[in-house]
């Protein structure tokens, strides 16, 4: 075979091979990334981040992983206890129904607010929304994967 044609042919194939070498390296990185994410199985439906807590209990910045039913209030039997003078004993209830979160006010004295709007009975809650009970502000976030 003509060496000229052959060398042209080889360099052409080298380019294609290098494209696949790049793809292969990228896919290896992606697989490692996905495996790492799969190794930390998360059954969390969401998490509650304390954005502001003037009373200091819970300290602001703390994170609560959420169960499908999470109660919030001053009473120690709640899943999330907020020590604040303006929080009722059983203040509100977070529930995950089907595909979305809801917050239900349990007849608290000072009310529950979602993004500054008072919850009247029950309201839908999206990830990134901010919940205010008493002086404490809590943010609902998706759990990290």
């Amino acid at each position, binding site marked *: 075979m003509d060496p000229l044609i052959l060398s042209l042919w080889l360099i052409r*194939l080298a380019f*294609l091979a290098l494209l696949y070498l790049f793809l292969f390296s990228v896919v290896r990185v992606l697989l490692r990334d996905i495996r790492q994410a799969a190794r930390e199985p998360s059954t969390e439906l969401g998490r509650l981040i304390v954005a502001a807590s003037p009373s200091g209990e819970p300290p602001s910045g703390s994170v609560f992983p959420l169960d499908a039913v999470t109660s919030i209030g001053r009473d120690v039997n709640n899943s999330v206890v907020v020590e604040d003078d303006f929080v009722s004993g059983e203040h509100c209830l977070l529930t995950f129904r089907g595909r979305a979160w809801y917050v239900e006010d349990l007849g608290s004295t000072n009310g529950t607010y979602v993004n*500054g709007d008072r919850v009247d009975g029950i309201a839908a809650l999206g990830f990134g929304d901010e919940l205010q009970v008493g002086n404490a502000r809590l943010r609902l976030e998706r759990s990290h994967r």
Partner: protein
Amino acid sequence: MSAASAQSRPALPSIDFSSIRPRPRWRELWLLLLVGIALSVGSVSLGATERVQAGKALSFSPAQSQPLLAYLGALLLANLAQVLAGRRTDQVLLPAVGLLGGISLLLMERLPQNLVSQSIGGMTLGLGQVQLLWLLLAVAIITVLAIVVRSDAWLRLYKYTWAAVGIALLVLTFVRGEDVNGARLVLRLGPLSGQPTELLKVIVVVFLAGYLSEFRPLLVEQDSRIGPLRLPPVPYLAPMVGMVAIALGIVVFQRDLGAALLFFLVFLLLLYVATARSAYVILGLLLFVAGSYLMYRLFPVVQSRVDVWIDPFRDASGSGYQIVQALHAFARGGILGTGLGAGLPMVGGRPPIPEVHTDFPFAALGEELGLVGVLAILGVYLVVIERGLRIAAAAADDFRALLAAGLALVVGVQAFIIAAGNLKLVPLTGITLPLISYGGSSILANAVVVGLLLALSDKGVEPPPPPRVGGRLAGLRSRLVQSGR
């Protein structure tokens, strides 16, 4: 109440410069190195082929080394700038996008330079040189966005403003735009001109992400039923459907079918990402089929596109010419391709496929790199989509998740629409192949998308997303949910 809303105003993100520490990005550097080697070998292959065809002695040196070196240098600088900025952003996106841009550069250098000529300051630049300038600008945009954007409040809080900007852009194009090949695509404002639909696709994704994240809790509930389909309360779907209808309507009036198809598919995909309800997708597809049939009957443009798609050989030298030539190009390429620079013999001083640099770069690559090369390029687009979806899955709240998913999908879907159009799998629609086609608007809009994706992928500093300021709609939504119970 007033205290609560005052507190919930987002504070401007303040950057503490003393806390910024360089953070090495070895993975990105390694992948960029591979991109550099691959592109250099491609350039040598192109150079050798061109010299042999010109009847000169064979020598293995790149076709034109300066443009490629400038481009690779810009990618390295982007890596260095991100290392210095010390953000923990994604390390795969930039190399993947860099490879696509580099292939674009090789292709545009290889196509006849007189397809485009622009004179800047007395110098006349050809196709490859202009594309090089756009690509360098794109790398700069990606880097700046990846480093600077630390808060998404400016996108999240002003979704209706963005929607208004988008609609204004469309109306402006309709009133003042210029027609290209029967479609009103180009808007010229003073010295600037561009394709507004490219920018519009970013705006549409931002609006849809903002709207869907706000109303997601409601959209996943079912309140009204149409037959077996369960739908969310109609008032919540109305503004969104209205927005899409306006976008689609004007786009149809501008006869830009590719953009219409892209917007509708991205809308459906995002609706599914937000709600995980297949009823929406089924309903959307039914609407799509009905709408397509209606448009087929009403608009001769659509009719001719579909007819050409069904049988391009019936008028192979007329309306079917472009697609027939593209099919011939794919056939010439075969499995391994003819090699860079060896395809597309000129017909009368022009390449056989009209608009090869904007609408048919995929066919040109199919000829020169063959099935193997084209599959690799589609693989790179899949990588971009995968990265976007991973960034979405790791996002802390709905808006970021939907924004990341939408941005990645808009690029991916566009790539697959035009690739399928070039292959005659779907009727041809004149949109660009993201990051490969020639064109400033397309390259820059896609650079904005990639830059935003990089900024959203930062896991290190994650400023709290500002809560949405409660307004009339928020009050309405809590009341409606309650009454629906």
